[in-house]
């Protein structure tokens, strides 16, 4: 028999989390890493993985003691495991949905994505191997991935390293980087999406 309080806890975790739970939890995760003597930043793993694959032969940027960054790969591995647990064991009663606003559903319909209010899935169907055979899928997954990997290293960090760690430490460069993230995002959504998704 599983104790009732554990079942209650599982039900409680399974509900969609409001922003005022998710945001402070991210800060707590950053504090735990600081307590462990490490700085929170996920995209640094791409550089570590390149270096571990021998990229140091091609550019000095990848000649560093990557084995000292093994901890960050473990954070990424844990994140994968967390995603597995959340999607397999902490599913809300109405399934994994993105509870986006009515206005967003209307915008999606204009893009040709025929979702109804309250039925938008958490993950879009174009995150699939079949989608890689479409131009849209190649743009989203292949080109999107390239831009994220290139841009994160050029800017010296991603959402975790700059938006969370950097701004929390009142780093002006991080604020500039996050302004850059938003400029790029707005250009993509408002000027390039109508070309890509129509």
């Amino acid at each position: 028999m599983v104790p009732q309080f554990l079942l209650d806890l599982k039900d409680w975790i399974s509900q969609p989390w409001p922003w005022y739970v998710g945001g402070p939890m991210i800060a707590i995760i950053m504090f735990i890493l600081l307590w462990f003597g490490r700085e929170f930043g996920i995209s640094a793993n791409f550089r570590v993985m390149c270096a571990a694959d021998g990229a140091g032969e091609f550019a000095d940027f990848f000649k560093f003691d990557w084995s000292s960054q093994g901890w960050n790969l473990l954070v990424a591995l844990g994140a994968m495991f967390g995603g597995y647990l959340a999607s397999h064991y902490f599913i809300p009663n109405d399934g994994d949905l993105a509870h986006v606003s009515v206005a967003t559903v209307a915008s999606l319909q204009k893009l040709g994505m025929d979702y109804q209010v309250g039925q938008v899935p958490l993950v879009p169907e174009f995150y699939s191997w079949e989608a890689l055979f479409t131009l849209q899928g190649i743009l989203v997954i292949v080109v999107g991935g390239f831009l994220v990997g290139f841009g994160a290293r050029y800017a010296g960090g991603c959402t975790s390293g700059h938006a969370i760690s950097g701004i929390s430490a009142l780093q002006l460069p991080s604020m500039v980087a996050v302004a850059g993230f938003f400029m790029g995002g707005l250009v993509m959504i408002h000027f390039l999406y109508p070309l890509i998704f129509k």
Partner: protein
Amino acid sequence: MKMSRFIFVGILFGITLYKSEAVSWFRIYEMFNFQSFHMYGIILSAIAAGIIGVQIIKRNHLKSIEGEEIQFHDKDKTYPRYILGGFIFGLGWALAGVCPGPMFILLGSGYTVLIVFLASAMLGTFVYGLLRKKLPH
């Protein structure tokens, strides 16, 4: 094992971003359309809690588990890289609907195609490493 603690931090991170829907392409799309406070609430409340905590750590010279004072490294104050790199990252973030954290989380949730995203991101990082000396920083 000492290193296993980092796996637990990652698990906490994965569950948090998954359950708060920050891993969702639709939430990122909504954010860049200014159609909900949700993502802004997550980012702003994380930063607000983060600023308070970092100030407490700095003012009290708190030590890490290894007994050393917790250090914060100042980022280089040269701006082209943050504007240009940030802009390129933003294009990719909005296009793919995932940044590096959610990519690992959704990969673990079973969206195996994101291994292609990971390979592309590594290629992007590799190309940056090759071009680094020619790019304005």
